[in-house]
């Protein structure tokens, strides 16, 4: 499932050979934890192949027959492809700008005099402390005034603003560990801030950017609250919003929701695997510093 090039693999912990006992003692917690993760998820996976009746009568068992009816219903009946497209558009656009704008702010923070940098850092990360529930209604009114309601652009703008604090928070922490001398030397050699940022800082921060990217992707992809408030037309709805339709007041179509959850997870798994590769590159880049 996951392809990896092991050639670039570098041992980074102790280089001593690991003996068999140690190997086994390493695997025990890993296997146990993996089971803890996978068993509940297996329930979801199984449930997505059941009818509601089967789920109610035998919630834990293996489906009697592996009917993909729920998936067919999901994609045939609904505008699922449109919802996927909308989610992709909103997520990719948001994450791109979150990373770009966030990493630029982080760069400025580490290059500024300490006091100014810290104040800016504090101001931006303050946003992480605000509970989303409290600014919902004022945000809604603001978008309404700007005529940005029921548009992807409004949703994207709010998402960017909401996630910049987390992005800056993670990236600044990492960028602060970069060797300052290296950046100064480049400036003395005549490089502009933009060059230092794009040619040195970004490549060196790839592992951190990859983690931030994954964070932002997952949060944006699964965000329910903002689309719920800002999107009205069904042609503009995102996946989590669309899945709400299967949740009834008294009768929730769990198998359909679970089928939707499985389908919605696949793009994120692919994105995860994609960014996962950056860790290796980042590791190589990181070892240059020493």
């Amino acid at each position, binding site marked *: 499932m*996951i392809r990896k090039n092991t050639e670039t*693999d*570098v*041992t*980074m*912990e*102790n280089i*001593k050979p690991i003996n068999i006992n140690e190997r086994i003692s390493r695997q025990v917690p*890993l296997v146990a934890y*993996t089971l*803890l*993760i*996978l068993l*509940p998820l297996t*329930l*979801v996976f199984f449930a997505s192949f059941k009818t509601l009746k089967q789920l109610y009568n035998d*919630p*834990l068992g293996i489906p009697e027959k592996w009917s993909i009816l729920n998936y067919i219903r999901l994609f045939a009946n609904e505008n699922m492809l449109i919802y996927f497209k909308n989610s992709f558009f909103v997520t990719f656009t948001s994450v791109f700008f979150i990373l770009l*704008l*966030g990493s*630029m*702010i982080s*760069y*400025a923070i580490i*290059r*500024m005099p300490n006091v100014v940098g810290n104040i800016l850092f504090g101001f931006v990360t303050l946003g992480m402390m605000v*509970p*989303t*529930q*409290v600014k919902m209604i004022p945000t809604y*009114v*603001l978008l309404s005034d700007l005529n940005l309601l029921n548009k992807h652009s409004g949703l994207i703008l709010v998402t*960017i*603003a*909401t996630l910049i*604090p987390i992005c800056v*928070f993670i990236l600044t*922490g*990492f960028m*602060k*560990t970069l060797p300052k001398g290296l950046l100064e030397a480049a400036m003395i050699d005549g490089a502009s*801030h933009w060059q230092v940022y794009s040619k040195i800082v970004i490549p060196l921060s790839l*592992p951190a950017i990859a*983690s931030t990217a*994954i964070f932002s992707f997952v949060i944006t992809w*699964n965000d329910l609250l903002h689309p719920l408030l800002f999107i009205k037309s069904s042609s503009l709805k995102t996946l989590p919003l669309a899945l709400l339709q299967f949740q009834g007041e008294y009768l929730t179509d769990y198998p359909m929701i679970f089928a939707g*959850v499985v389908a919605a*997870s696949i793009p994120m*798994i692919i994105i*995860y*695997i994609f960014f*996962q590769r950056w*860790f*290796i590159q*980042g*590791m190589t880049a*990181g*070892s240059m*510093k*020493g």
Partner: protein
Amino acid sequence: MKKYKALSFFILPGIIFYILFFIFPTISALGLSFTDWNGLSPDYNFVGFKNYKLLLTDDPIFIKSVSNNLKYMFSVVVFQTLISLVFAILLAKNTKLNVFYRAVLFLPTIISSVSVAFVWIFVYEPSIGSLNAVLSALGLDFLIKSWLGDKNIAIYSLAFVQVWAHAGQVMIIFIAGLHAIPKSLYEVARIEGATKWQTFRNVTWPLLAPSATIVIAYTTLQSFKAFDLILATTDGGPSYATEILSLFLYHEAFNNFKFGYSSAIAVVFMLIIAVITIVQFRLLKSNKVNY
């Protein structure tokens, strides 16, 4: 000075969006904490500090929520940090197997918290659920509990789900941190004949401190602000045993139609987070290297 001026162009685009779409609505919400607005009607009155006075002097649910918040936060921060650190170290090497494990640990993060809630409602469900059935099958009947129904356990059952869902997520930060440690330092440690523990204590841990700071601070905020998961599982029950501040202010605003009061809760909520964050940074600073 000139070189700093150029930096403002790095800041401006992001900060403009942040101020317009984040700070501005937040401030207008906070202004409402001095009013009696119900969240619906076109008009409201200015009431000064009445909401704050009521909240701090005469609201048992507020006290209960803060204590639930702290219980939840402490258990999540301790266990999520430890678990993610242990697994990050075990999985730091980029072997095929490790990459697979990392992906598995990350899986729950991919699913939205609402879906995670669905899953665990099924797992915890006393009669048709799986957890008690598994415990019973293993002969561990004494461990069977009313996971979400017992006032003393429910908040911890939810904290467990939170860790389950997010340990793999913050593990990524630790792994990124581990990968940033120069390989040469390990060489030196090896040449000097350091034991594994010594290597961890003197090389890995100090250099991992920035990542640890990020993980702990992020987890603290994430657990303090937890919302979707609890809303979808217990909605604060039974008898307010899992009501935390975010849920409390949500209920006041959208169920009880007390938006002004809810805004006051939000202000106090942010002050508490700010205090916790500052204390935390102070504590972690002693651990810090070149931060």
